[in-house]
């Protein structure tokens, strides 16, 4: 006799320990198998794009900090590049080097957070998360030296950065970089050979590269499927042309590959920072206020600038009408767009893999909802 069953709908979130913020999914389960998923956004929507329309170009830097709050330096960088493109500003070399160092440090921090929380979603009770967060803490200490703030840095300004790194920053950075390499070794020793991690993440949520590109998904998720697409390499902004680094690729395109690509990219970031330290030259960190005034009035027009953020292509689209505030600001948020294939990844999978897959996308609700 067949047992009569029916799928059950469960609301996961917005108050759930592993939704990485306030995210809600209405999931239909058939036993442990996922039949249907409907993501529901907007619990952290703060209207950043509307707020930007009544702030000056410099003030908006603080808004971008609060979008993806685990990679605020990268948000700053994307926004500043868009402003520079819009206003035709030639940045100061030392400022550019400094902001490259800052944003690569931020990329490491973001990848550490992603790895830590992936393991947290796998059910390791906090230990790998705390190991990762401890190292991120060191990076935040470096930020504190360089700009006085830890999370919401607001370090970058049109044309460079707002202050030069103090003298004690450079030895601290040197120590920090070797610490980061040690931590990454430790994490990899703990994770990459762990049979449970391997069996949980291998072969889950596999996506084909064609589908990923069609769904506009970029960043580590795309590189984990073997597509060699990194904006730092394909469309070098700032001084990435002068930097040599490897693009780490993986062919499996599953959760493990995404984790692997992130850890390897963090290692590459360390190399990038070392090259930046070698090439940085003394000079002003931003153009004088005669060239780039505090109250920018870019000519009427529009500009789109994108960087390789920690989660994918992070773009800012700015429209100016010649005034002191942008007429329209749009953020191409990689976190939101990377969720496009969430249904494809989850349906047919197990409940246990739901949050692992979700975590492997590496999203930040502050950026999804803005």
């Amino acid at each position, binding site marked *: 006799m067949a047992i009569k069953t029916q799928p059950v709908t*469960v609301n996961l979130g917005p108050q759930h320990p592993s939704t990485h913020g306030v995210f809600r999914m209405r999931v239909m389960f058939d036993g442990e198998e996922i039949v249907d998923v409907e993501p529901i956004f907007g619990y952290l929507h703060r209207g950043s794009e509307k707020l930007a329309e009544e702030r000056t170009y410099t003030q908006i830097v603080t808004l971008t900090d609060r979008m993806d709050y685990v990679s605020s330096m990268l948000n700053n960088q994307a926004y500043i590049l868009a402003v520079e493109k819009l206003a035709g500003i030639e940045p100061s070399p030392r400022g550019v080097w400094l902001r490259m160092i800052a944003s690569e440090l931020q990329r490491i921090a973001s990848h550490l957070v992603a790895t830590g929380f992936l393991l947290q979603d796998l059910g390791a*009770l906090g230990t790998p998360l705390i190991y990762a967060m401890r190292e991120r803490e060191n990076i935040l200490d470096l930020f504190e030296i360089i700009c006085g703030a830890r999370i919401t840095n607001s370090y970058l300004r049109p044309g460079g950065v707002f202050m030069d790194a103090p003298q004690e920053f450079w030895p601290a950075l040197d120590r920090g970089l070797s610490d980061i390499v040690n931590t990454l070794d430790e994490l990899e020793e703990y994770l990459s050979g762990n049979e*449970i991690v*391997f*069996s949980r993440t291998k072969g889950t949520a596999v996506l084909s590269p064609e589908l990923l590109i069609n769904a506009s998904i970029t960043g580590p998720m795309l590189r984990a499927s073997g*597509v060699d697409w990194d904006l730092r390499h394909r469309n070098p902004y700032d001084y990435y042309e002068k930097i040599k680094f490897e693009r780490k690729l993986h*062919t499996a395109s599953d959760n493990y590959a995404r984790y692997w690509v992130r850890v390897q990219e963090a290692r590459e970031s360390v190399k990038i920072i070392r090259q930046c330290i070698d090439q940085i030259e003394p000079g002003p960190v931003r153009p004088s206020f005669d060239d780039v005034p505090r109250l920018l009035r870019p000519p009427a027009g*529009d*500009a789109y600038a994108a960087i390789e953020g920690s989660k994918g292509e992070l773009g800012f689209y700015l429209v100016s009408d010649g005034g002191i505030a942008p007429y329209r600001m749009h953020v191409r948020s990689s976190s939101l767009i990377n969720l496009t294939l969430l249904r494809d990844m989850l349906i047919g999978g197990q409940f246990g893999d739901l949050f692992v897959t979700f975590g492997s996308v590496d999203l930040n609700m502050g950026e999804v909802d803005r």
Partner: protein
Amino acid sequence: MDQSFLDNSLWRNIYCLLAGDSAGCSARDYASGLLPGGMEWLAFAITALAIIGLVINGVLGGVIVLIWGERRLFGRFQSRTGPNRWGPFGMLTSVADAIKTMFKEDVVPVDADRILFNLAPILIATPALLVFAVIPFGIGTYVADLNVGVLFIMAVTSLTTLSVLTAAWSSANRIAILSALRSVALLISYEIPMALALVGVIMLAGSLSLGQIVQAQGIPFILVQPLAFFVFFIAAMAEMARAPFDLTEAESELAAGYLNDYASMKFGLFFLAEFMAEISTAAIVTTLFLSGWKGWEPIPSHFWFMAKLILVLFVIIWFRMTLPRLRIDQVLKFAWKGLFELTLINIVVTAILIGIWPQPTTAQLWMMAAVNWPVAIISIWLVSRLLGTAKYEKASPDSDSPVYSVATESIPKTSEYITNSTDVSSVEAVSKEGGA
């Protein structure tokens, strides 16, 4: 078998101390009891209350210490300090927690089945306590030496799942139901390898009584029965739903599973039961595999038991802190395809060895160990090859045949149509005026 051990129970000691020279006490030299003659019924009642008080309070006190110890250890494993504010080394933290839990508001969901909802926390604490009825804590310190002690433990521990199911069903919460289903699946799967793992131990000891199993351990059975220990330890971890098998609570998936709707002291009782189960599991492992209270003189037997118990608890906490969680299908596959085979191998090998040496002496036990260890290592290796996940052959894609063709460094052929992106300043387009 040492007859004095069997007579020498905690029960008998207290009873004889009170009642004095009654029929069963003569062997223990109790000339006169504290109570006058003819008051045996009072001695009986006081003894019963004393034992209940001793065991329950002992276990609850143990839970308080265990919670503190576990949190301190968590802190150490995670390179932080752990609780250190209340009392010396934060020892009063769990006391403060207990008081806080009691003073919280008791919330009952509207849709809940009130009777079952209130009954479940009481039910869940019972089996964990009942296990202590048959555990020998030291020489002469046990409540009852049942001749079916092992069966009793197997029967009683599986009751936990019933109360989990009751709690989940009565709170009318879908996440809780999912958690309870997992709990039942775990019970059904892991009860079998757990029981079969014990068959080897029972064959060696020739008895189901825990007291006699301890007596039979000339050397700890972990040395003689490594395979049985391996399977039993893992199955016991799964039975009490500890990481890496904490699927019923699964904080990152089910929030708190069946505990979702419980608050205040009802939650506290679940919490207590969980830690009591941890202690009872450690006590069972100590008794069955680590030769219980046996040790070297002059250190008292109770100390040996406690030391081994704490060692097992440490290993359980270590596991919990280190390993990520398995998925439900992997957990069940592991039980049926891995542990089940291992126990069968163990039973066959042990049966052959028992056939050779029917009443093993200590020297023969060592010889059994010499046979069993290679068998254990080979069979575990074979099963891990069978169930393990293969590594990736290569991580990086082939540069000759990329998965998706991406532009090379050279400028594409249509370059005559294309301007360079750095040439932005020449763009005079303004969306408002530009265009048609």
